[in-house]
């Protein structure tokens, strides 16, 4: 969510910076929006835009450290720069455990300038972003309260019911004794005996017995229906994977863009599980020795793909297309998958039931801005209604949108 908050900021800063800065070649020519995408898809696995060291050095102030031509040569072919005996390059190579940067030969001036522009903007915008972050966190805190409140009320009700029952029992006992007429007579029975008799008399009462049976049946029915509705719902499913891949590390701490590994997420119906070759983009140099990384090496050597366990399973009768929701609707992955960057083991956070899908289709506005596909629809909708155009309004609840 915060990305959409931050974007106007970035644009503002960018427009300011283009006014104030005038380099020959460098970040001033670049488009930071394109740069952000490029950075996330290609650089973020090893570099942070600020000063933090991930695998390679942080890129904050990179343009002050090196000139543009050097950077271009380095990005396009780092091996050649090292081989040329460039002091800075060799030093860098030695400093970072002789880990050589991936070459990006396809990057031309446009791409490199864009990335540099993004790095610059991102560092300038960092304080602002932190503020925005804080705001978002506060908003999120009040969010998941609903469920808890409900539970508390339920428990409270149960306690009250119990108390009422006890009070009723006491009254019943008293009435019983009054009925016998000899309140004066001292009851000779022991306390245990008395409670026993009391309970017996209560359970011998037909109304109470019937009430208990009815209650029991009602609870039983509810449990059965709940159970039936739960069939096939695997919310909270978090299977053990053949390699304990940590999304917390990769997506969270390393901030690798989801689409870097899940290549299909903006293109097709499947987000896709990354092939071993994608792992190798980084792990051919990083943590080679780890026994789990060795499993990837073994898979490639033995020509035996890694068999991951699917976490999010939709039934075959439902058609779901990732790109409709990501590329067209502009939704973030977290929307359906939960806070993946915080998950050590990926867990199915939402029920993925049809009701869950439909609820969202009822509530979500169509991302129609700037998309000519929706222009006429939007116009017609706005003429007839003052509400925003929801997915529901353009047929998002129809059966054959997902079932065919």
């Amino acid at each position, binding site marked *: 969510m915060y990305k959409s908050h931050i974007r106007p900021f970035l644009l503002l800063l960018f427009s300011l910076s283009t006014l104030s800065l005038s380099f020959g070649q460098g970040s001033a020519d670049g488009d930071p929006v394109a740069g952000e995408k490029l950075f996330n898809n290609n650089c973020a696995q090893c570099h942070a835009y600020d000063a933090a060291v991930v695998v390679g050095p942080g890129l904050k102030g990179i343009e002050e450290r090196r000139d543009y031509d050097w950077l271009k040569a380095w990005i396009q072919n780092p091996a050649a720069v090292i081989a040329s005996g460039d002091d800075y390059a060799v030093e860098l190579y030695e400093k970072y455990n002789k880990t050589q940067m991936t070459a990006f030969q396809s990057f031309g001036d446009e791409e490199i300038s864009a990335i540099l522009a993004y790095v610059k903007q991102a560092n300038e915008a960092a304080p602002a972003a932190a503020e925005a972050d804080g705001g978002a966190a506060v908003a999120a805190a009040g969010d998941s309260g609903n469920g808890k409140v409900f539970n508390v009320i339920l428990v409270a009700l149960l306690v009250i019911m119990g108390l009422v029952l006890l009070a009723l029992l006491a009254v019943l006992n008293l009435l019983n004794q009054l009925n016998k007429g000899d309140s004066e007579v001292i009851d000779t029975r022991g306390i245990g005996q008395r409670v026993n008799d009391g309970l017996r008399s209560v359970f011998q009462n037909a109304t109470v017995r019937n009430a208990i049976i009815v209650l029991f049946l009602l609870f039983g029915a509810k449990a059965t229906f709940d159970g039936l509705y739960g069939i096939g719902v695997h919310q909270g499913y978090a299977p053990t994977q053949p390699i304990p891949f940590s999304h917390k590390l990769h997506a969270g701490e390393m901030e690798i863009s989801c689409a870097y590994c899940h290549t299909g997420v903006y293109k097709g119906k499947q987000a896709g599980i990354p092939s071993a070759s994608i792992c190798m983009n980084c792990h051919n140099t990083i943590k080679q020795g780890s026994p789990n990384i060795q499993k990837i090496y073994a898979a490639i050597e033995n020509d035996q793909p890694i068999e991951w366990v699917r976490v999010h399973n939709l039934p075959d009768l439902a058609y779901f297309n990732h790109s409709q929701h990501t590329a067209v609707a502009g939704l973030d992955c977290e929307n359906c998958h939960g806070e993946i960057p915080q998950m050590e083991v990926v867990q199915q956070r939402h029920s993925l039931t049809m009701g869950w899908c439909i609820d969202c289709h009822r509530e979500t506005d169509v991302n129609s801005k700037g998309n000519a596909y929706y222009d006429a629809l939007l116009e017609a909708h706005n003429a007839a209604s003052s509400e925003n155009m929801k997915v529901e309004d353009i047929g998002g609840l129809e059966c054959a949108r997902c*079932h*065919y």
Partner: protein
Amino acid sequence: MENTTKKYWKGIEEYRNDIEVVKNAEKEFNLEDLDGGTHRRDFLKMLGFGVTAVSLAACDAPVRKTIPYLNKPESVEPGVPNYFATTYAEGGEFCSVLVKTVEGRPIKIEGNKLSSITNGGVSARVHASVLSLYDNEKLKGPQKEGKDISWEDLDKEVMAGLSSASNIRIVSSSVFSPTTKKVVADFTSKYPSAVHVTYDANSASGIIEANEASFGKAAIPSYNFDKANVIVGVNCDFLGTWLSPVEFAGQWAKGRKLTSGKDGKHTMSRHYQFETGLTTTGASADYRGMIKPSQEGALLVALYNKLAGNTIGNSAFSDELLDKCVADLKAASGSALVVSGSNDKAIQTVVNGINSLLGSYGNTISFAKTLNNRQGTSAEVAQFVSDLNGGKVDAVIFMDANPVYSHPQGAKIAESLAKVKTSVSFADRADETAAICKFIAPAPHYLESWGDVEPKTGSYSLQQPTISLIYNTRQAQSSLLAWAGLDSDYHKYLKSNWKSNILSGKSWVSVLHDGVYDSGASSDGTVSFAGDLGAAAASIASSKDGGLEIAVFESVAIGTGNQANNPWLQEVPDPISKVTWENTLAVSQKTANELGLEKGDWAKLSAGGYEIELPVLIQPGQAHSTVSVAMGYGRTAAGKAGNVGANANPFTNGVNWTGGASIEKTKSGYTLAQTQTHETVMGRSAVVQESVLSEYVKDNKAGRFEPMIETSEGAVKPYTITLWNGHEKKNHSWGMVIDLNTCTGCAACLVSCQAENNVAVVGKKEVVRAREMHWIRLDRYYSTDADTEYQINPSHLEKMEHASENPEVVIQPMMCQHCSNAPCETVCPVLATTHSSEGLNQMTYNRCVGTRYCANNCPYKVRRFNWWKYYENDQFDYNMNNELGRMVLNPDVTVRSRGVIEKCSMCVQRIQAGKLTAKKEKRRPVDGEIETACSQSCPTGAILFGDMLDPNSRISKALEVEKEGRAFHVLEEINVQPQISYLTKIRNKDLVDSKAPGMHSATEHHEEEAHAEEEHNG
């Protein structure tokens, strides 16, 4: 009161105390006969077990694996299809196609619109060929005498055999691949004794030989049916099977398209067809005459005589229709075309003479570009057969040829072949010929192969693999190269041949991408006729009437039988007879009466010492004293699905007919697996609307039936009174316009739909029970001689049910009409079928509980019920019962399970995909970007699909002019408001000749009224 123990007997059996009665005394109901045999106790037991099993199963999440690529190719994105251009070329048939692949497996064939020959059209057989790729009855690797052998050993032994041979023959179907020809030449230079014999299962030998004699060109010319105003076909099924049917159908349709409106096209070609059995071409013709095969020659000689005004020989043939035809041909000189499917050189010589008279050469026929897909001649094959039988051949290689099955003397060939020292077949399975060969070096399917073809001079089409090899196979070309001692990499060979000989500097990659390449080469096409018509006429005159004659024809679905083991094709209903899964003996009603044959009989047909036994089909339009039998059936080694019917090839001998046949009834009471048993439309002009051209020129709405509903305020149009609220369509309104004028019934749409929508094959037994699952039906209606005015009179209705002797035919594609006021939707108790805001009638399988109320309430009867689970079920042992066969399934469409209804979804998955592409590119979908499977594959463009809310779409424009013209809704009077419109069938026929219901009664009524008025006035 005495006799209180009076005993009553149920019957005489009980009185006699028969053994059966004693045995069954305790059983009130004879349960053994009940289908299935599930009893109450078993049912309860199963129920109990089922509930427990389900609840146990529900406790655990099913562990589903997800297995990524090890090294994902950059071009492949799981879930995003890729398209590759390639070429179908088998047994002399060809088609430039695009192949849709998902994750590296081909699932659908589509036409390549860049092809200048097929123009994006695809036939039923080409569509079905993708399933043949996944045939699990193919050989898994090379074999020697039925045992597995390695390629190295095979090469060694074959090469030893070839080098010791002094008489090698390569027998293949027509090779129209320039590179394969080069391979054969390379092979021949290594083994000089090798002779290449071209053997076509259904050859065009007659045309080639006649052209050589007439023009000095032993080739087949290009035909241009689109340039012909008058077309005459004589036993020539050019819309279904003859030479290049997809191309011809497209051309023919150009001349048949009509547009209403003031400036619309109101002219069309006139098509005469003279034929023995009723074919799709005859059904689509304006005038159709019935002739016996022995009359072909006489008819053409008579035609020549009348056209030329002089006689080349006597002809006893005379027919009113022929005179009419002559008059039209004379008037259309220079834009006329006469074609014959005969394989008799004399007959084709007369055809050449006629076409020369008419000035067809250079206009409707051209030798500038020759058609190369049939090259075999009978003489060449006869020479090979006699050499083989004479023991003069010591090594033979079969490439895409199966003469033991398809040659008339197959049995003799089999016998001689067994004696040949070295025999090799490249067949994909141990077919009839390969099984006798010593070695089988299986070649892969065309979708796994590299290759090229040159179907017409200078027009090339490339083949590229769309999947890696499924089995341990090797291309025939690679094998030949290997045996010639050359590098067996055919890909490299092909590329280098193209670069040095064909491309002339163009980029290989771009040509491979397009799939087709036109070099522009052509030769001087001018020809002058020099054929000996006198000799031809004399030869024809010697051919006598053969009594009961057998005509052997190629059927639209099975063809010559090379794809016989394809269950999709076996289940394609024949466009005319609607029979599936077997061939039949088609006879006319009159002949059947004479021979004592009835519907449901089986009979033995014999001629020239060969006999077959098949069910009898009473076929309207069949010439009298003839029996039509389809070739391509009666395979014995095709596989589970393919070994059906009986082999008719031995009846033929050079020409596709034989005389002197006899037929004998053997048994009765059989039900043919037909998908349609009704013959006529029973005068229902609300269903089929037709007229003739002369009426249409006067009134664009000619032949239209416009029902009116009586109300208290007088008669009104049906749509003005309604109980329905309708559905608002804001975004899209998907619909179709189907032109009855250009639909030939070729069934390409049907197979295309089957492939796209995972439609199950149900088998013969279920088709008999009318449980076929096809989503699109090609309803075929014959005209009747009875008065089609409705009368409440059972005997009259019975008359209406009978087709004419030589009927007019209408073929009407019928699928879900996507009614806006859908009767099915209102009766579904669980809302499994609902309406979308884009005009689609949606079917939700997971909601359906199978009441079948919707199917009951559907006025068009297009809903299909899954009576069984058709996948992973040994009862239906077709492609969905094995892992390889299931590879063809479209991952975007649910495979339906038992107990649910299904029907045409208007390819909603394609609509959704097309919309998504547009949304991603932030634009509206462009017309033509989204096509349904049926509309995309139609070779004649008879099905037009599009968004009726888009004012610029072709469908909107068509409907704009046709609304007050030919467009109608089937069953308009029930006001269901379908999204599908049909365009009236217009025949280029004189009004008096028309058999369409209502055509004459209308004029008669006018006359009657006029008379009445006169009388009144008088």
